[in-house]
C-alpha cells in the first residue's frame, strides 16, 4: 500500500484564493509530495452546496445520513472528511482528487491534487504548468491510505486518464464515478464496474430519449457525406479533449487514412494522445494546409463552426460530434448539417445498467438531468438523491 499523499487530513477550503495558478511551486510530473506542506487554514463547517439542497434528498434519508457522516457536498463540491480531500471541487482547496481533465471537473488553483498520471499531464497542458501546487499520480488499481480511508482509482472509460474514485471507510464503499461511458473507446481504458454501497453518478444524458447510436454508424455517416459532397470541406466541431482524439481514432478504425486537419486549439491534446501511443495518424494543422481543403475532414472546437475562421474552406459543411446531436432542435439551433451522435457520456440505458451493476443501495446524482434519473431509481427502490453540484452545467461535450 502506498502512502505519500499528505498524512493528516487537513480540512477544507483555502481562503480568499482567486484561483490563479502561478503562485504554487511546480512539482515534476508524477513526482511525490515534498516534506513540508503549504500552511492550511481551517474554516468553520461549510454549509451544503446550495440552500434548499436538503429538499432534493430522495427516499430513505436514514441510510443517506449514514454516508453523510463521511462524504458530503459542501460549497466546493464533494468532501470526504475522514480522508481530508475533495473530489473534483469547483473552487481551490487544499487537497483534491480529480477524476479527469475536463474543465468542469479539473479546476486550477488547488494546493495538492491526486489523479492519474494522464490527468495530471492533461491538466498541465490545458491550464498551464503551475495550475496546481503538488500533483501526485496514482495508477489504476493502486491503493492509497489517506487518513482513515483507503482510496483507489478505477478506469471510467470517459477520456484518457479518466477515473472513478473508490473510497473504503469502515466497511462501507463509495464510488465517485466522475463522467463515464460504457462503450468501447480506442483512446482510453474501458469502464470498470466496481461493486459498492454508494454510487455517485453523473446524469448528463439522464433522460430516456438519450440513447446514443453505435459509433461506427455515425462515423459511416461522415464518410458517406464525404463521398456525397467531395467538393466541400467537412468541418466537424469536437470537444478538444477526448472527443477530438476519439473521432480520429474511430475514423482510423474504419480505414480512413487521409490526413485529418486540426484547428490550433486541438493540437496539444492530440499530440499528447499520440505521444501516449494512441494511433491517430496524420494530423496536419489547418494553418499549414495549402488550398481550401475541399473534400477533407477538419476538426475544430464547436465555437469555430460557421465562424470567420471557416471562411477559408470550400463551402464548409458543418458537422458536430456530440451526444446532444440526438435532438433535432439542438442540431438546427447550431446550424449543423451533419449531426454525429458520438458521446463520451453514458446514455440512459447505460446509466441504469451501470447503477444496477454496482449493486449500490444508494445513488447520488452530481449533475445533468437528475430529476428523471432520481424518479426512475425510485421506481427501482434505490435511494437516490440529486446533489446539484454547482459549476457543472450541461457538459460541453
Amino acid at each position, binding site marked *: 500500500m502506498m502512502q505519500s499523499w499528505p498524512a493528516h487530513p487537513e480540512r477544507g477550503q483555502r481562503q480568499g484564493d482567486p484561483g490563479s495558478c502561478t503562485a504554487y511551486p511546480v512539482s515534476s510530473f508524477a513526482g511525490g509530495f515534498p516534506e513540508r506542506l503549504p500552511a492550511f487554514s481551517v474554516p468553520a463547517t461549510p454549509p451544503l452546496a446550495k440552500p434548499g439542497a436538503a429538499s432534493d434528498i430522495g427516499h430513505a434519508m436514514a441510510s443517506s445520513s449514514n454516508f453523510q457522516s463521511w462524504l458530503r457536498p459542501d460549497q466546493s463540491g464533494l468532501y470526504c472528511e475522514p480522508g481530508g480531500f475533495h473530489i473534483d471541487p469547483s473552487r481551490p482547496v487544499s487537497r483534491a482528487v480529480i477524476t479527469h481533465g475536463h474543465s468542469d471537473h479539473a479546476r486550477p488553483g488547488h494546493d495538492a491534487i491526486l489523479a492519474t498520471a494522464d490527468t495530471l499531464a492533461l491538466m498541465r497542458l490545458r491550464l498551464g504548468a503551475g495550475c496546481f501546487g503538488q500533483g501526485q499520480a496514482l495508477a489504476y488499481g493502486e491503493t492509497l491510505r489517506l487518513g482513515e480511508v483507503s482510496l483507489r482509482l478505477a478506469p471510467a472509460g470517459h477520456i484518457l486518464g479518466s477515473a472513478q474514485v473508490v473510497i473504503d471507510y469502515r466497511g462501507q464503499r463509495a464510488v465517485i464515478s466522475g463522467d463515464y461511458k460504457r462503450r468501447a473507446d480506442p483512446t482510453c481504458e474501458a469502464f470498470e464496474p466496481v461493486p459498492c454501497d454508494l454510487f455517485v453518478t453523473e446524469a448528463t444524458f439522464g433522460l430516456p430519449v438519450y440513447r446514443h447510436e453505435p459509433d461506427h454508424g455515425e462515423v459511416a455517416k461522415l464518410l458517406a457525406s464525404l463521398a456525397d459532397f467531395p467538393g466541400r470541406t467537412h468541418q466537424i466541431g469536437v470537444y478538444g479533449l477526448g472527443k477530438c482524439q476519439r473521432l480520429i481514432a474511430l475514423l482510423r478504425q474504419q480505414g480512413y487514412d487521409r490526413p485529418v486537419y486540426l484547428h490550433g486549439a486541438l493540437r496539444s491534446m492530440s499530440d499528447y494522445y499520440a505521444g501516449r501511443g494512441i494511433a491517430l495518424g496524420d494530423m496536419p494543422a489547418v494553418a499549414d494546409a495549402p488550398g481550401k481543403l475541399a473534400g477533407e475532414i477538419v476538426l475544430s472546437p464547436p465555437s469555430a463552426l460557421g465562424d470567420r475562421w471557416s471562411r477559408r474552406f470550400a463551402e464548409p459543411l458543418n458537422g458536430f460530434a456530440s451526444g446532444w446531436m440526438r435532438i433535432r432542435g439542438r442540431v438546427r439551433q447550431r446550424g449543423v448539417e451533419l449531426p454525429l451522435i458520438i458521446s463520451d457520456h453514458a446514455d440512459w440505458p447505460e446509466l441504469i445498467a451501470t447503477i444496477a451493476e454496482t449493486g449500490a443501495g444508494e445513488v447520488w446524482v452530481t449533475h445533468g438531468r437528475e430529476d*428523471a434519473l432520481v424518479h426512475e431509481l425510485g421506481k427501482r427502490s434505490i435511494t437516490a438523491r440529486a446533489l446539484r453540484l454547482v459549476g457543472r452545467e450541461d457538459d460541453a461535450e
Partner: protein
Amino acid sequence: MKAFADLLDRLTYTPARTGKLMLMRNYFRTAPDPCRGHALAALSDGLALGFPLRRVLAGIGERRFDPELFRLSRADVGDTAETVALIWPGTGAPGAAPALSDIVGTLAAAAPADHPALLTGWLDSLDATGRWALLKFLGGAPRVGVSARLAKQAVADAFGASIDDIEEIWHGLQPPYAGLFDWLEGRAARPALSASPVFRPLMLAHPLEVQDWDRLEIDDFAVEWKWDGIRVQLAARGGLTKLFSRTGDDIGHSFPELCAPEGVDAVLDGELLIMRDGEVQPFAALQQRLNRKSVTRALMARHPAHLRLYDALEIAGEDLRGLSFEERRARLEAWHRDHAPPFTDLSERLRFADKAGLRAAWEQTRAAAIEGLMLKRRSSPYLAGRPKGHWFKWKRAALTADCVLLYAQKGAGKRASFYSDYTFGAWSGPEGAPVLVPVGKAYSGFTDRELAELDRFIRANTVERYGPVRAVAPKLVLEVAFDAIQPSARHKSGIAMRFPRIARIRWDKPAEEADRLETLKAMIG
C-alpha cells in the same frame, strides 16, 4: 423504410437546394417501386392516409412509457413526435422494418380499431430515425423544406428528363406513380396527358434593369399594368377545372366560384384579384381568401374573387405556347369575346407613342396605387421558367426610410459565417425619451463587400447575444427600400413593410437622425 427514413433525416439537416436535390436524386434512382412513388407523394402533394396520428399516439403512449419521464423528455426535446420516436423502447429488429408500400397498403385495408396495434408493431420494428420518419410520414406532409416542385425536379434530374415534361403529365398521375417511373426508366411510353387539367409551367419576368431600359425598343413590347394579386393558371378541360398557383399547387378549393365555369376548355394565365363593385381591392383582402380549407358564402360575397387574364397557353385542346405573344393575345381576346365567364376580364393593353410616354406612366404608378408595369416582347413564344430578354417587370419606385440596425443573425449556406439578416428600427416615444421600435427585417440589397463590412461592424458592436441573434449598439443607419407599408396588428410597431431590402448603408449618418415611426406610418397606403 430505412432508405426513406435516411432521406427525410438528411433533408431536414441540408439547407442548400443543390444538396436537397442530390439527396432526393440518389434516392429516386435507387429505391424500389412502389416505395419511391409513395415517398414522392409524401414529398410533393402529400399523402392522404387518413391516419389520426395524434389520437392514436395519445392512446398507446400511456401504456408504453412512464408519463413523468415522457413529460421531462418532451420538455427537453421540444417536439412530441420526436419525443415518441426517441423514447420508444426497443431498438428495431433488423430486417423486420416494414416497407413504405406495406404501410400504405395495410392502412388502406385497416379499420380504425386496428390503428393502435399497427402503429405499435411498426414502431417496435424500427430504429429511432425510422420511428421519427414513420411518424412524419403518417402525419401526411413531412416538413423537411422540400416543395412539390423541388421533388419533381429531383425526379427529373435523376433520370435526365425535363421537369416541364413531368409537370405536364403530373396531374394525371396517381401515387405511387408506376407509369411515371416506367417511362423515366425506359420501360414504357410517356403517360398520356390526362383528361384532368394539367399545370403548365409559367413564364416569368425579370426585373427591368437600367441596361434593359436603354436597349428597349418601344415597338417591340406589349405593355400592361402590373397587378397586385397573385399569379394563377386556370386550367379547364372536360368539365374539370383547376386553379394552380405559380408553383403548381392546386388552390381551387379556396376559390370555388372560379372553378365552376361551364364549357370552358382552355389553359389561361392571369392575376387572381379581389374585385368589389368594379374596384380591385388591396392585397390584404386577397389574403383573407388564401389558404382556406373551406370557404363560406359570406366570405365569397365579402371578398369576391376575380380573374384578370393576360395570356392563353391552350384553347380547345390546341397548344398555343409556340405562338408569339401577339398571336396568343389575339386568340385570347377572340376566345374571351365568345366565352367570357362572368368573373373574368382582360388585362388592358397600354399603348405609348414613345419611351417618354411609357416612363411618364411608370412615374404615375405609385400615385395611382398600381404596382408597376409589365413589358412583354411581342414576338416571344410562351417559354417556361425565367428566360432572359422576353418579359420584364418594372415595379414602381421603392419608398425608403432611414432606420437603425438593432439585431443581426447569421445567414445560411454561403452566408453561414456572416451576420446577414438584419432587424432595424425607427424612433418612437416622446421627444425627451425616444426609443427604437423594430419595424422590419431585411437580408438583401447589399454587395458582398458591404456584407463583410456589416459583419465586421456587428461583431465589434455586439452588446448582447440571444442564441444565434446579436443585439447591436444602435448606431448604424440603414437606408431601407421597400415597396409599401401596411398596417399590422401582429407587429409591435403596428406596421409591416412589403419587400424591404437594404438600399444603402449610411455610415455617415448619426442614429439620432434616423426616421420616426410616425413618418413610416404616414406612408401606409
